[in-house]
């Protein structure tokens, strides 16, 4: 037993991750270089034209997804940081209650949550329908099927994933460090900017990672809350795979999306410093 133990323990997990994660991504890479269609079959031609064609055809949706994902992530950071800050430093004995309340929506399915959010925003729904009835809003006012609804939905759905990692980082900040800053005549703002903020950056990094990737690739919010002008790359990949059975294009698009996200994360990591990346990755 002894020395072989870790290998026996790891073997089933390795097999599962190998067969269903590594092999499929390799299979997708191979499919993305084929040509053909579902009826005549796909032939491996090692052609990269799938990539250039797919990017040329869907550059609008690709750029739109990155913009929506980026704007949503920035909004989540701005909205979420103060919440994490307040709970970490002023939550006192009620910290876990606040965290529980923030996580409460997760007991409802992601899809159902998005649809309920759509209910709230509906043209004749309880919010806008009532306001229109009072004459506060013009009758042709609508939010559903606009960019605002989609980005709002993304922020709504992923905000807790931004708050939690920042909270964890802020919670670890030793209060004596902040006191030391005050003792050295730092103003409240200076203490925040030069002590608290830098110490919370690993949390910010993890939060951005946990929100930007799923928000950019998400097909649900655009499908439920958006209109025809809000289609994101996730919807395109789904349609190409599941409706058009255009596997080469869909695979090429999936790979492009992953590459773009990886490059984005890499650039972001470089600007924040690689140590933080490794630390975030190790968690």
């Amino acid at each position, binding site marked *: 037993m002894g020395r072989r133990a870790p290998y026996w323990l790891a073997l089933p997990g390795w097999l599962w991750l190998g067969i269903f994660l590594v092999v499929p991504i390799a299979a997708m890479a191979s499919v993305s270089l084929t040509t053909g269609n579902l009826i005549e079959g796909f032939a491996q031609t090692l052609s990269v034209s799938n990539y250039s064609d797919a990017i040329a055809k869907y550059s609008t949706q690709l750029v739109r997804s990155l913009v929506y994902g980026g704007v949503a992530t920035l909004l989540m950071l701005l*909205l979420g940081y103060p919440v994490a800050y307040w709970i970490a430093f002023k939550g006192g004995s009620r910290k876990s209650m606040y965290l529980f309340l923030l996580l409460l929506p997760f007991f409802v*399915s992601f899809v159902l949550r998005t649809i309920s959010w759509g*209910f709230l925003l509906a043209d004749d729904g309880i919010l806008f329908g009532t306001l229109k009835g009072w004459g506060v809003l013009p009758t042709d006012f609508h939010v559903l099927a606009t960019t605002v609804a989609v980005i709002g939905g993304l922020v709504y759905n992923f905000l807790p994933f931004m708050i939690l990692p920042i909270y964890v980082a802020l919670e670890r900040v030793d209060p004596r460090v902040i006191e030391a800053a005050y003792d050295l005549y730092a103003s409240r703002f200076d203490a925040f900017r030069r002590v608290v903020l830098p110490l919370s950056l690993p949390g910010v990094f993890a939060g951005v990672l946990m929100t930007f990737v799923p928000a950019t690739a998400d097909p649900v919010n655009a499908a439920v809350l958006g209109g025809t002008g809000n289609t994101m790359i996730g919807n395109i990949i789904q349609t190409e795979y599941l409706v058009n059975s255009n596997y080469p294009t869909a695979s090429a698009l999936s790979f492009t999306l992953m590459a773009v996200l990886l490059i984005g994360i890499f650039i972001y990591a470089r600007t924040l410093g690689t140590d933080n990346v490794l630390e975030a990755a190790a968690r």
Partner: protein
Amino acid sequence: MRTRFGDRVLHWYTWLIILWLSSPIAVMIVFGFNDKKSKSNTSWQGFTLKWYQELFAIDGLTEALINSIVIAVVSTILATTLGTLLGLAVGRYRFRGKGLTNFLIFAAISTPELVMGASLLSLFVSANAPRGHVTIIIAHTLFSLAFVVVTVRARVVVLDPSLEEAARDLGAGTWETFRLVTLPSIMPGVAAGAMLAFALSIDDYVVTSFVNGSELTFPLWIIGSVKVGIPAQVNVMGTLIFALGALVAIANSVSSRRRAAR
């Protein structure tokens, strides 16, 4: 005085965010009691318990919910077993391939769901495998597995190895030591991982939408009926799942607090 005012603003702001995050949930619960006549369920038309009585009246929806529960149970068992073993391996031992294993776990967590679903479909299409229950369970086990590893590993690294040595000194075999000492000490991590796996599975839409074939799960059925109008039974089922999840979480935190107090 200024600082106190700032804190008060932040306090109110935190509550505002909590309120915002919960408002769609409140809408879901309330409109499960709506006596709606039309297909759309956006305006209040009176109180009824009709949808609770007719909870299982829509065959497709009931079937989808049962599918979701069965898939969640099976994939949770698989992911928890594989993930616990892998978590023990990476948490306790130094071995060749440990770095690669950690990288694979990180990759499984950070791969966008869309790419995971699409790549699994590529595999199943290449292998000519029929899509259905089995492929959904494979996919759910895959994305849950890594989360179980992370929660179990966190417990394993703080485990005191002298406990196991003591058990062996007292004559316990490998299996007895594992069952009577190791497993109980890492149990909170295993339980947290299992709960996470169950929640991830029952909630999943994106990955499932690629590998489901013609099989529908609860989230897929709901998305499919968005265009024609969501029946109020969906609100009721959502409410019941929500209540159950919240109760389990509260019971769990109460019991762990009691354990801590002892």
